[in-house]
């Protein structure tokens, strides 16, 4: 955990340079025509979703398969408040309400699930939560408008830029809060719970409170993403909002990068999106097949993620290549 001050400074300047690049990039190119701007927007969204899963699963060891439930709640809260006229276009209040809605559900459902269930049972329980909400939205009558879904008039759309910057802002804020949590007592408590729940509890850590905290924070940022997605697609239905992709893709990205690491998920997001886009360019027809094969190859050959290759004791790849030594990250 402890880093040398010099290295920490280097990492901070790399991070600032990256954020600076992402801020000015859409201003330099024609943002509406640039596919890369859209890809970056998607990537920021997935950074947030990935870290939202990572904080509960990677740090605290509570593997949730129900993130699509929170994403869907975010979508529907935004769509319903807009239909009712209480929220405007890209309304920060509606977005916060969407996040809060997801957080409230996370607390209400998390209390019994996290208190009672461990490991795989918790994962199954959260998977059930996502499916219940999907079926409930499908049968919600005029409130959720069932299978047809809620349409938002799309004539308010002007530019991708606001989406881009909001997604960037959310992901930076998520990264910042994760950094502060990971480097505080809370982070230590979460890791202690992941490593040995019984020992953590014996050492006076209120395990349920910390698990709920991690789970709820993850749900909150996932809800924010859902809200932004609702504004972006203008049509919310159950298959889009409660799609399992919203839980599986972030998990894949985090595992590819490195579970329970700070930088790993970001690397995972960008390398996976790059790989999928490359496959899509080369073989537009076969791309879902290659995507499935890619997932299998990653788990076969990189089960501990990219980060383990950068920092692991066995394969200190960057340490072997001395010119890049200064880049090697501490976990």
């Amino acid at each position, binding site marked *: 955990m402890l880093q040398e001050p010099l290295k920490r400074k280097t990492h901070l300047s790399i991070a600032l340079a990256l954020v600076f690049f992402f801020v000015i990039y859409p201003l330099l190119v024609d943002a509406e025509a640039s596919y890369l701007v859209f890809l970056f927007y998607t990537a920021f969204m997935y950074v947030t979703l990935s870290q939202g899963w990572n904080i509960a699963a990677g740090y605290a060891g509570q593997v949730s398969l129900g993130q699509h439930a929170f994403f869907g709640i975010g979508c529907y809260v935004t769509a319903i408040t807009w239909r009712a006229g209480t929220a405007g276009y890209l309304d920060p209040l509606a977005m916060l309400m969407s996040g809060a809605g997801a957080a409230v559900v996370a607390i209400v459902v998390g209390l019994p699930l996290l208190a*009672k269930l461990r490991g795989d049972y918790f994962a199954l329980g959260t*998977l059930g939560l996502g499916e219940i909400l999907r079926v409930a939205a499908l049968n919600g009558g005029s409130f959720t408008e069932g299978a047809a879904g809620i349409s938002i008039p799309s004539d308010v759309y002007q530019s991708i830029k606001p989406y881009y910057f909001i997604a960037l802002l959310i992901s930076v804020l998520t990264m910042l809060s994760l950094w502060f949590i990971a480097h505080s007592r809370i982070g230590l408590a979460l890791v202690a719970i992941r490593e040995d729940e019984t020992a953590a509890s014996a050492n006076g850590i209120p395990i349920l409170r910390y698990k709920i905290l991690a789970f709820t924070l993850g749900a909150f940022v996932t809800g924010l993403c859902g809200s932004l997605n609702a504004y972006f697609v203008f049509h919310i239905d159950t298959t889009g909002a409660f799609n399992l992709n919203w839980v599986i893709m972030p998990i894949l990205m985090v595992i590819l990068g490195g579970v329970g690491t700070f930088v790993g998920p970001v690397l995972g997001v960008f390398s996976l999106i790059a790989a999928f886009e490359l496959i899509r360019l080369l073989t537009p027809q076969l791309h879902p097949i290659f995507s499935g094969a890619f997932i299998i190859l990653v788990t076969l050959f990189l089960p501990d993620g990219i980060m383990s290759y950068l920092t692991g004791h066995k394969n200190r790849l960057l340490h072997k290549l001395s010119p890049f030594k200064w880049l090697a990250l501490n976990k």
Partner: protein
Amino acid sequence: MTTFPSASVFFQVLINGVLLGCMYGVAAIGLSLIFGTMRIIFLAQGAVMILAAYCIYWMATLSPINPFFGFLLILPVFLGLGWIMYKGLFQKVAKAGANPSLLLAFGLMVLLEHVMSLIWSPTTRSVITSTSTSSLTLGSINISVTRLIVAAVALMATALVFLFLKKTMLGKAVRAASEDMSAAALLGISPTYVSAVTFAIGIALAGVAGVAACITYPFDPFFGFLFSLKALIAVAFGGLGSVGGPLVGGVMLGVLESMSAYTFSAGWADAVAYAAFLLILILRPEGMLGRRSIEKV
């Protein structure tokens, strides 16, 4: 909400549920066996089922063989397929932990789904058998012959697995390994061999369930995930890792679904099943039939 107008309607709905549940049960036993020894939630179970379904579809359209013989054909083929899948994919990844295994299963599911939609196109298919339209009549209750045969095959497959686990040395080793893998390894049971055998049986059972599904339902390449979920729920009802439990769990799920589809609506039946699933997970995580165990520290 609709109430049952008479006892015979109630029994009709009940029997439909039991017959449906037998199919869930077979898939669930496979899932439960795999989970018991390897602690893998094998999400691709449903995709493997649909793969078997397409094999039967091909056999039935290209040759005059009766689809019911598919059970005999699928069983050995899928045993071998399961063995290859374990040796080629899961053996290495299982050591890395539960997360990569879950992901590998998901990747396999995506790959299978899209390969199937490439080979057989995404259109919905169905297999027509000689008994598709015939039904038995008991008093005022109608029982579909196809579903009855499917349920009988499901029960036979369960009985076979049960006998294997209880009466053979290898079966005993599988049971020992699912109770405590490290203790079993200390007694000379090879974890990889036992896992490979269990995995092969799990895949074969998915194959049997797939044959059962394709002669009762129309299907498409992406239909399997729903079955994976249903099988998971059935396993949770009966208790993770046990053998007879998942079949009973499957039947319970089938009855619950057909009862709630009748009293509420077909749309809400799934929600009722998931809600019952969550309740059981919270109140009795060891399943309705499982024994309570004290967690070892």
